[in-house]
């Protein structure tokens, strides 16, 4: 691939790093559960953190979300969506858990 421009090479590198990071994070997630190395009650928070990290990696690498100017619109859209989803998601869990408790 000697004809690849610098830019193309840089992008390939980025994608490869993304792939490797994803694999590492996925393996870590599975290992958390299969090996049971974490104390009880820590596994799920760990899984959440690993999943969120992996999602950020995917967004950055595969979906090209970054902090540069032309991507700002997409980023704002995404953040706004996440905000609303957080309101709806946590609201739901809060309300329903409370109802279950008071049943």
């Amino acid at each position, binding site marked *: 691939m000697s004809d690849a421009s610098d830019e193309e090479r840089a992008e390939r590198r980025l994608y490869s790093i993304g792939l490797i990071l994803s694999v590492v994070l996925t393996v870590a997630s599975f290992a958390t559960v299969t090996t049971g190395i974490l104390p009880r009650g820590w596994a799920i928070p760990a899984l959440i953190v690993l999943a969120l990290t992996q999602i950020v990696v995917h967004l950055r690498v*595969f979906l090209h979300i970054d902090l540069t100017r032309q991507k700002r619109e997409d980023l704002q*859209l995404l953040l706004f969506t996440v905000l609303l989803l957080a309101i709806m998601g946590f609201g739901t869990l809060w309300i329903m858990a409370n109802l279950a408790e008071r049943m």
Partner: protein
Amino acid sequence: MSAKAQNAHPGMNLGYGEGARKAEVDVFGFWVFLMTDLVTFGLVFAIFGTMVGATAGGPGPEEVTDLRSIAIQTALLLGSSFAFSWASLSMKYDRGRGRTLIFLSFAATSALGFLVMEFIDLRHLVEIGATPQRSGYLSALWALVGLHGLHVAVGLLGVGSLTGQILLYGLTDKIKSRVTRLGLYWHFLDIVWVGIFSMVYLAGVA
């Protein structure tokens, strides 16, 4: 990096004309669509969260989770996503439509493998009586996994359609913009899968 900085959407290489403007509008519109899909998935996740305990004496997370199969599915979907990004790169740097098509077909095959594995898993669930009619928990599980699977299947149709278009018309600006949008969809589905394998399967047996 300067060329990249000028290009509104990194998946394409369209310059600045009317075509690029149209593509920008289309891609932005597609992002908005993805966000509605994100909300949809997020809500189904939330409902799943409220129903984790609702097994009604039926099969629970332990019974329905086959971690080996889930790991393979994860690998297949990640591989598919990666292959798609390679297809986008070939398209962007004009490496010929042959290469683009080859990577697209890798992506499609891998995703097809994912669907087959998922289908086998679900059939197993039916065999052990873990049908969605059994309990609220299983209803939510089937809905979430099924919704994602359906999305992947529709994505495969999209690859089929685009492959035909590329063969017929080559990589025109319009088709490049479509490949870019399908790519976003593809990677988005992988993100949803990260949520599913972590929160539905792994957290279920953790």
